């Protein structure tokens, strides 16, 4: 049974020039312990879809779906209080800009302990011990010292580890990672991705990885969903997607990769989309 089932999700924003459809009838499902990559370029709606599931969109957004079911719970009909028990506990999220995601005025220790105490109801001593434990689990050296540091004193990679620590503190069953390595150097990206995969295996979490980087998809995903301009273009397991892509947009994306270049010029999406009818 799928852990998360999304059917016909549509998100519309009210803007000064009328309504804008960011996500248009998207179906996504994730099984327990599965790594799903949602890949698309900017404007594909990949982040907006997951933010809609988490309830993190602004008031100008209208979210509609036929089904939005997590582990048998219907997220569309649940009350605020019930949702809060799931979001942030069983389903957690990490974002793209690690330094900006942390409050610059407080130490990282304060911020992770805040989550442990108010979200998970621990007392101060237990929260501190658990914070040290979590920092060790995400590979931060000298955790006791680092707990007293401020976000601007830490590197991007370390801040992302802190974010991951906060996200796994509640032992979530589903972790959504929105472009977690885009802002990081390639060697740090490798470390963070390895960490995420490691934690995913160890804790048996499902992981939804949102990215625009096909390389990240190739290295981490079990299954892949390709989105373009708010619509789902293709869904396949990772090997099939790279070996035998069915959709023209997927094929365009794969051939636009510089490592797949077969000549002097890189083919562009326009070359592909013009030649074939859209689904």
């Amino acid at each position, binding site marked *: 049974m799928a852990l998360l089932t999304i059917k016909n999700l549509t998100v519309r924003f009210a803007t000064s020039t009328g309504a804008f459809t960011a996500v248009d009838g998207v179906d996504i499902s994730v099984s327990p*312990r599965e790594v799903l990559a949602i890949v698309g*370029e*900017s404007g594909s709606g990949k982040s907006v879809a997951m933010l809609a599931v988490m309830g993190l969109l602004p008031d100008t957004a209208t979210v509609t779906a036929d089904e939005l079911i997590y582990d048998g719970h219907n997220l569309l009909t649940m009350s605020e209080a019930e949702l809060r028990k799931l979001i942030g506990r069983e389903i957690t999220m990490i974002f793209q800009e690690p330094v900006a995601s942390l409050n610059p005025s407080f130490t990282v220790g304060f911020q992770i302990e805040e989550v442990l105490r108010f979200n998970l109801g621990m007392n101060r001593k237990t929260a501190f011990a658990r914070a040290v434990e979590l920092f060790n689990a995400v590979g931060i050296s000298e955790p006791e010292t680092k707990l007293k540091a401020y976000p601007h004193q830490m590197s*991007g990679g370390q801040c992302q580890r802190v974010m991951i620590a906060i996200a796994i503190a509640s032992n979530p069953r589903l972790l959504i990672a929105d472009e977690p390595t885009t802002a990081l*150097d*390639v*060697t*740090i*990206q*490798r470390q963070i991705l390895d960490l995420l995969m490691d934690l995913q*295996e160890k804790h048996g979490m499902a992981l939804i990885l949102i990215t*625009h*980087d*096909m*390389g*990240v998809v*190739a*290295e981490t995903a*079990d299954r892949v969903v390709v989105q373009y301009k708010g619509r789902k273009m293709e869904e396949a397991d*990772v*090997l099939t997607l*790279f*070996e035998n892509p069915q959709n023209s947009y997927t094929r*365009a*994306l794969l051939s*636009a*990769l*510089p*490592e*797949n*270049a077969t000549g*002097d*010029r*890189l*083919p*562009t*999406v*326009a070359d592909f989309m013009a030649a074939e009818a859209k689904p």
Partner: protein
Amino acid sequence: MTLVIEGKALTQDYHVSAGMFAASKTVRAVRGVDFAVERGKTLAIVGESGSGKSTLARIIALIDAPSGGVLKVDGQTVDIGRKRLTSDMRSKVQMVFQNPYGSLNPRQKVGDVLMEPLLINTPMPADERRDRAEAMLAKVGLIPEHFNRYPHMFSGGQRQRIAIARALMLNPALLVLDEPVSALDLSVQAQVLNLLADLQDEFNLTYVFISHDLSVVRYIADDVLVLSDGVAVEQGPREALFAKPQHAYTQQLFAATPVTSVAAIKARVERRQLARAALSP
């Protein structure tokens, strides 16, 4: 086989003040870098953040004077610390920046953005400036209708094209490109890389291309220079470097770069299936 640009033992120091009562520290961002680029070729400078690549880019683009070392453009030694740049020298080296959303003045119309370098550096009359600007706009794949618009009305890829057009207005010999496609989507990246290749052929341009993305570097570079902590740890022709990286840092970079080949994916998927089967028999 003319050398368009040559740098020897370039160093750059930053003085970081440590408050009123402590002595200021000196941070050496670039340490003794040597490089040379022939006309019509592309040198790719690879490095991560903190490697000094942007600092080096600013030296090469004649924005900042180096603390030490010699920089030669077209055989002539250039020292902007000593003497102000002539219009002629300024026209020889131009730059394209990384952030398409920050490198265009939000209050300046695109047409004015393109005409400004001509206005400042040449005695060209207004209508000739306008003609040149419109021609360049067309060359980078935009249309005359875009001339009157403000940058926020364009997408990231289009803005980068405008930035490239601006850099070419003075007919430079050398273009310094600081991660010009890093902030762009994959398909837009392909378009911009194609454009850069076409322009290089047409105008016989020399590129110094800074990037952290090895797949892009492999695609466009003739020579590669790997920068780590201000030091050029390895440099050489592209094929040689990619075939057999010598330095440990270069090897680390290669190891960290994601691989998208089907074979690698197959291997990883099989590994994972085995691991999962072992966990839950």
